[in-house]
């Protein structure tokens, strides 16, 4: 029996095009089963967001059907509402269906993360670790299965976008980015990386057309249902005008250091102009940087811009590092010595989640967490700054063609 099991573990198993060893297959299966189990066990938790917002939206959709989308009761992008509408048609509990859909995307997202890690490192082991780590990241478990949030939807689309961009399938990648923008405004946090890719001749101007096209496709059914076009166009602007009761909503950024209860309206505009100015300076510097745009560099840019923008934009929520955490995991898998950063970022995010879900203030003040977050940003910024100066790595990349995105 022992010999049989050991023999099986060393045998190769094929799943589609992928070939795995028996032990790898076993580990992945156990991880998946455990990840499913934990999600099933916590699915009945009802968060405030569900009882206050989602359930009332679902009720509206249930009573009025698709025509309900003509109303202005929702401030999410219409594609999320279509999902809710589809859920009302299902003969199962709406919350379970919604959480189930998001959890499915989590598994798909974990697979894409594994794919990106595989693409960047060519290491199956690292890809498998990335898959497992993403599924067991506390914020990932809490986000959908407990809190009934849907950050995985746009994160998954962005992951697909980057995956295809790394594969040099620019159009597919940009369609995914456009789709992500149609779902969530937070997609724009990392937008500057696309501008840098354009400057570096990796994408063309025409590819950016996917963003408005997907946005219009996203709002089109809601317009057909009867919601005025002007409202649909400005739905993100309306989102931005909400949550003005604090400059940082349990998010460890600069406002937790300088104060998040004053100049609530003034800092909205001032914060945006400040971020704009900072991005101009950073992008100016990056445009002149002598750097080979490798796959690692692309991932690093996504992480950097994700951290930088959220650190200065006002009214950030605790969930807004979800996307960056996913890419930080990929980066930590590429550069193992950055793994502590991934742990730190994961910890920082989970503090806000815990406060929301338990209604208890964290033991560590957010100001301290904001300094830790700043340290993470500085380390990532330094990696970006030193990237082209690392001669040894450049020489290595010169000899390793697979480390590049084909131009």
């Amino acid at each position, binding site marked *: 029996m022992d010999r049989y099991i050991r023999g099986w573990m060393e045998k190769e198993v094929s799943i589609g095009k992928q070939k795995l060893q028996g032990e790898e297959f076993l580990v992945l299966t156990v991880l998946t089963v455990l990840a499913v189990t934990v999600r099933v066990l916590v699915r009945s938790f009802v968060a405030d967001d569900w009882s206050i917002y989602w359930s009332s939206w679902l009720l509206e959709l249930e009573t009025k059907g698709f025509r309900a989308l003509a109303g202005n009761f929702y401030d999410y992008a219409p594609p999320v509402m279509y999902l809710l509408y589809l859920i009302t048609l299902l003969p199962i509990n709406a919350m379970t269906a919604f959480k189930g859909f998001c959890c499915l995307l989590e598994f798909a997202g974990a697979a894409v993360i594994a794919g990106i890690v595989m693409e960047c490192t060519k290491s199956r082991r690292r890809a498998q670790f990335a898959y497992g780590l993403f599924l067991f990241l506390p914020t990932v478990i809490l986000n959908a299965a407990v809190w009934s949030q849907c950050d995985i939807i746009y994160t998954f689309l962005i992951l697909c976008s980057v995956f295809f961009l790394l594969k040099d399938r620019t159009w597919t990648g940009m369609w995914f980015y456009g789709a992500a923008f149609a779902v969530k405004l937070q997609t724009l946090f990392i937008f500057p990386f696309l501008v840098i890719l354009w400057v570096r001749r990796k994408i063309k101007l025409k590819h950016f057309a996917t963003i408005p096209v997907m946005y219009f496709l996203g709002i089109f059914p809601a317009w057909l249902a009867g919601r005025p076009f002007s409202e649909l166009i400005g739905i993100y602007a309306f989102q931005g005008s909400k949550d003005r009761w604090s400059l940082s909503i349990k998010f460890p950024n600069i406002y937790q250091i300088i104060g998040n209860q*004053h100049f609530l309206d003034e800092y909205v*505009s001032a914060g945006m*102009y*400040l971020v704009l*100015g900072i991005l101009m300076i950073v992008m100016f*510097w990056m445009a002149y940087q002598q750097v080979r745009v490798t796959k690692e560099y692309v991932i690093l840019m996504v992480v950097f811009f994700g951290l930088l923008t959220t650190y200065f934009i006002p009214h950030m929520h605790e969930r807004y590092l979800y996307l960056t955490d996913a890419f930080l995991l990929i980066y930590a898998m590429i550069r193992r010595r950055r793994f502590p950063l991934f742990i730190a970022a994961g910890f920082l995010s989970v503090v806000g989640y815990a406060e929301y879900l338990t209604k208890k203030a964290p033991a560590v003040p957010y100001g301290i967490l904001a300094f830790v977050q700043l340290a993470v940003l*500085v380390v990532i910024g330094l990696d970006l700054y030193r990237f082209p100066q690392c001669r040894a790595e450049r020489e290595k990349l010169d000899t390793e063609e697979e480390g590049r995105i084909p131009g």
Partner: protein
Amino acid sequence: MNVDHMLRELLFRKFRLGKLSFEFLEALLAVCITGAAYLLRTPFEKGIPHWTYVLAEWYLALAAAVLIQCFTGSRKKALGTYAVLLILPAAVADGTILRGNACVGALLFLCALLFLERFRGQSGAWLFTLVTAALLLWSVKYAGLLIGCAVLWQNRRLRIEQLFVLLAAGGARFFAAYRAWLQAGYTLLTFHWPNIYEIVGKEAVQNQPVEPAAVIGLFLTMGLSVLLLYLLGMGKIEMTPVQILRIFLFCGLFAGYFLPYVDQTYGYLFGVLAILYFMLAPGEFLVPMLLQIVIYAGYQECFNGTSMMPMAVFSVIQFLVTLWLGRRLLEDSGVGRVWRVKS
């Protein structure tokens, strides 16, 4: 022609205006950052400050850029300095929110440094002396610069006559200000500037003929300054731009850390100098980064009335920054080596 190619070519295309040559992207950044800086000042209740102050802030950014161009010869670094200074949060806090005029002092001192750098020899040194003396006469918050000037004299960048002028101007203002302040019956020892008093307690003693903490702090600053000068005088500092900036940054922060009755505007000049310092020594980016947080923390406590984090945290951060700069300065002067030999 391919539009992408054309636009990318345009970004890096060189243009010439008289003697000035630049790339399109540089001009684009200069224009866009100026626009963003203007917009950054619009959302506040009182609106944009009087145009003369806006102009002074713009001149400050421009003077800093020219100074960095002189120091490094790099147009991109100069442009970076210009861009950063235009959107500096402390500048917005002082000029737009508080309607302060700290930018004028910073502008004057940058001009003084520019004279020192551009006009080699005694004419530059005298211009530097006169402008700095005017600054010292204007406000006591520039008293720390006096220690820096003394270090410049020790290292033969200034002559004794020039130092006497500076000592006379700074000393007169210092004496007049503290004579009045010590008798004014202030209830606080620091006014939103995160220094030692935020750690040891900033409440002043009331109903006593003398406020001991303020007097001790005042004389502690003077005594430590003399010891510092004595220590730095044992070695020799090469007067490169980065060393000059380090001297003024350290001396200014050092004095402000112990002087009583200092307010949040004390940090403005040093916030600006820290940005210049970063452009010359990018490896020491933590100094300007932490200093900006400390300075803005002072301003925000001033206009919000409260601070999100205890001000003592910012005092500790400032202490660490000052300590770091002091350590670097001692390394520059080679005092450690001289000290070992002498002892």
